[in-house]
C-alpha cells in the first residue's frame, strides 16, 4: 500500500501494465518526452522505451485510427487524447470502427484498446479544455465507458480496462488528479468494469454521480447529514455497462434521487439514469428525480465557470427539494 493521488495511481497503473505485458504500449501527443501535459506518463518513456511510449503528431484521428490497427494487429495500445475537447477529431474512428469491429467481423477481429481522455472543468482553463462528453461515448454501442474518482479506482479500473478484450473509454477527471489521495495497493488488482460504488450509505435520498462531481456530492451529503437528511452517495463509475443493481437498487431503497453531472443537461447521461429509474423504480419514487447538471451552454471561461459547475449548494437544495416533495 502507498498513499497516492489519482494522478499517481494512474501513472502506477500504466507503468505496471507496460511492465507486465509486452503488447501494451502508450501513444498520444506529448506522452513521451514530457510525460504528457498532466505528467501522467512521466518517466514511462525512460522506463519502457520509445517503441512502447510514443509521442505522436497532433492528429487525433491518426492516434485513434492507428491504435485501432495496432489493437487489431495484436497490440494493446493505450491511446491518450490530450483533453476531451480534442477527442472529436478522433470520434469517427471510435464510433465507426473501434466500437464496431467485433460486431462487423463476428468476433474474428477485436480492438482491445484503452482510450484515455482527461475531462471536466473547474480549473479556469481556455475553451475546449473543460468538456464532459461522456454521453456521446455512452451512446455508442460497443464501448465500455468508465471513470475513476479515487486513486484506488484509478489504478484498479485501469488494470481492468487494459485487460479487457473490449475497447474501453477511460475518462480521467482532471479536477481530481491531484486533489484526491488514498491508499493504493502496490500489487496489481482490478476494479471490475460494470460496477458502481456506494461511497456513503444513506436512507433518505440517493445522490448519483461520477467523476469529479463525486467531490461536491460527498460534501453535499455531509451538509445534508447536518440537516438530518441521510444521503446515499453512489459513484456510478461505470456508465457502460451500468451496474443497475447498485444504482437503481439505491433509488428503490431511498425512494428519492438526485443525479449530478458536469455535462450539459439535455441528453446528458443523467437523462439515461433518470429514464431507467422511471422505468424500474416508478412505484418506489417519493419525489421526482432531480438533475443537477451543467447547463445547456458552452462551458464558460474562468470568470463564469462557477455559474456553470454544479455546486454543493445546488446539490443540497435539490436533495432537500426531493424531501419536501414527499
Amino acid at each position, binding site marked *: 500500500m502507498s498513499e497516492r493521488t489519482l494522478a499517481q495511481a494512474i501513472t502506477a497503473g500504466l507503468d505496471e501494465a507496460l511492465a507486465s505485458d509486452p503488447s501494451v504500449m502508450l501513444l498520444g501527443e506529448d506522452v513521451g518526452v514530457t510525460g504528457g501535459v498532466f505528467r501522467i506518463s512521466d518517466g514511462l518513456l525512460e522506463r519502457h522505451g520509445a517503441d512502447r511510449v510514443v509521442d505522436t503528431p497532433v492528429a487525433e484521428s491518426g492516434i485513434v*485510427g492507428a491504435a485501432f490497427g495496432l489493437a487489431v494487429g495484436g497490440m494493446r495500445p493505450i491511446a491518450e487524447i490530450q483533453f476531451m475537447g480534442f477527442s472529436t477529431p478522433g470520434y469517427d474512428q471510435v464510433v465507426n470502427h473501434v466500437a464496431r469491429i467485433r460486431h462487423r467481423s463476428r468476433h474474428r477481429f477485436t480492438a482491445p484498446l484503452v482510450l484515455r481522455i482527461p475531462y471536466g472543468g473547474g480549473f479556469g482553463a481556455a475553451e475546449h479544455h473543460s468538456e464532459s462528453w461522456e454521453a456521446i461515448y455512452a451512446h455508442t454501442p460497443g464501448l465500455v465507458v468508465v471513470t475513476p474518482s479515487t486513486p484506488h479506482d484509478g489504478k484498479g479500473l485501469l488494470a481492468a480496462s487494459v485487460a479487457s478484450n*473490449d475497447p474501453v473509454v477511460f475518462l480521467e477527471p482532471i479536477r481530481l488528479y491531484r486533489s484526491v489521495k488514498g491508499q493504493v495497493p502496490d500489487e496489481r488488482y482490478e476494479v471490475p468494469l*460494470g460496477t458502481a460504488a456506494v461511497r456513503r450509505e444513506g436512507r433518505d435520498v440517493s445522490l448519483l454521480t461520477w467523476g469529479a462531481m463525486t467531490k461536491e456530492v460527498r460534501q453535499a451529503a455531509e451538509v445534508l447529514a447536518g440537516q438530518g437528511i441521510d444521503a446515499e452517495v453512489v459513484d456510478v463509475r461505470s456508465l457502460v455497462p451500468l451496474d443497475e443493481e447498485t444504482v437503481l437498487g439505491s433509488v428503490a431503497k431511498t425512494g428519492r434521487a438526485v443525479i449530478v453531472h458536469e455535462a450539459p443537461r439535455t441528453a446528458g447521461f443523467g437523462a439515461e439514469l433518470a429514464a431507467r429509474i422511471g422505468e424500474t423504480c416508478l412505484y418506489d419514487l417519493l419525489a421526482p428525480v432531480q438533475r443537477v447538471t451543467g447547463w445547456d451552454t458552452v462551458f464558460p471561461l474562468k470568470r463564469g465557470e462557477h455559474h456553470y459547475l454544479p455546486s454543493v449548494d445546488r446539490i443540497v437544495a435539490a436533495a432537500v427539494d426531493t424531501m419536501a416533495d414527499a
Partner: protein
Amino acid sequence: MRQILLPDGSLDGESPLPTDHVKRLFEAMVTARRYDHKSISLQRQGRLATYAPFEGQEAAQLASVAALAPDDWLVATYRDAAANWAHGYPMDLLFLGRVGDERGGAPPEDVHCLPPSITVGAHMLHAVGLAWAAMLKGENRVALTMFGDGATSEGDFHEAMNFAAVYDTPTVFLCQNNGYAISLPVARQTRSESIAAKASAYGMAGVRVDGNDPLAVYDVTREAVARARRGGGPTLIEAVTYRLGAHTTNDDPGRYRTSEEEEAARRRDPIVRTRSYLEGLGEWSRGWEDAIETEAERLVDEAIERAEAMQVPDVEHVFSAMFETPHAGLVAQAEEAGR
C-alpha cells in the same frame, strides 16, 4: 507513368512475371469479372443489397495483391472484392456481406483481410496500425491498403500517410484512381498534378502506374512491398484505371460522364490487353478462355449458393458480437427483442 504491357498488348521492356503467372492472373481477372457481373444481376433480382462494381479495375486489384505474401495484411474497400478474394477472402463470404449479413465480415483465421471498408478514408489508418503492430512484434508482415482517388481528399488519408512515414511502418498505399468519386472527376477533387505526387508531402516514395497494366502494377507493388519488408518504409502507388460500370447499382453514370469517355475507357480494358498479350505469345485460345469462364461460373454460382444457404440470423445475432461477453443490460435487451 509506369507501363510495361502497352494497350495494344505489346511489351515495353521485360515482363516481371513468367507467362504461367500471367496466365493465372488472366484467369483471376476473368473469374473476378464473372463475380462482378453476377453480383449486378443478383442485385437486380433483389438478392444482394447495393453493389459497387469493379469492372475495369481487375488488373489494379489482382496484380497488386499478387505481390503480397499470404501473411501480409490487405485492408481494402467496398469496391475491392477481387483483391480480397485473391488474398483468400472466400467468395461466399464476400457475397454474404452483400446479402446483408455480418458473418460476411469474418474471413477465416488464416486470411489476413479486414472486412471491406464502407467508410471512405478511415481504413488507411488501420493499415498503418496493423503494419506498425507487425513491426513492433517482429513479424515480417506488410499491410497493403486500397482506396480510391476520392479517399485522398479525406483528412484520414493525410494522417495515415503521415503516421506511416513518421514511424516508417511497412505500409503500401495503393490508390485506384478510377477517375471519379461517385460523380466528381479527379480534376475537381484536387489540383495536385497527380495522386502519386502527394507522396512527397510526407517524404514518402510515390509512383504512378498504368492501373490497367497488370505487369506494371505487379512490378511497382512488388518493389513497394519489398521496400516495406526490408524496413524502407511506406510507398504511395497511384494505379490509374477506370471504373467501367456505375459507382454502385444505385448510380447512373450517364449523369456525369459521356458515352464517348466510357467507350474510350473500354478500349483500355485490362482483360482485353492481357488477352492480346497472351495471344501474341501464342498462349491464348478461345477454348482456354471458355474453360476459364465455365469454371468461373461454377465457382461464383456455388459461392452465392453457399451464401444464400446460410441460415438467416436470429435475433441473438444482433446482440452476440457487441462485446466479448454481453453484459446484463444487453442480455435483458436481447430477451426483450426475442419476445
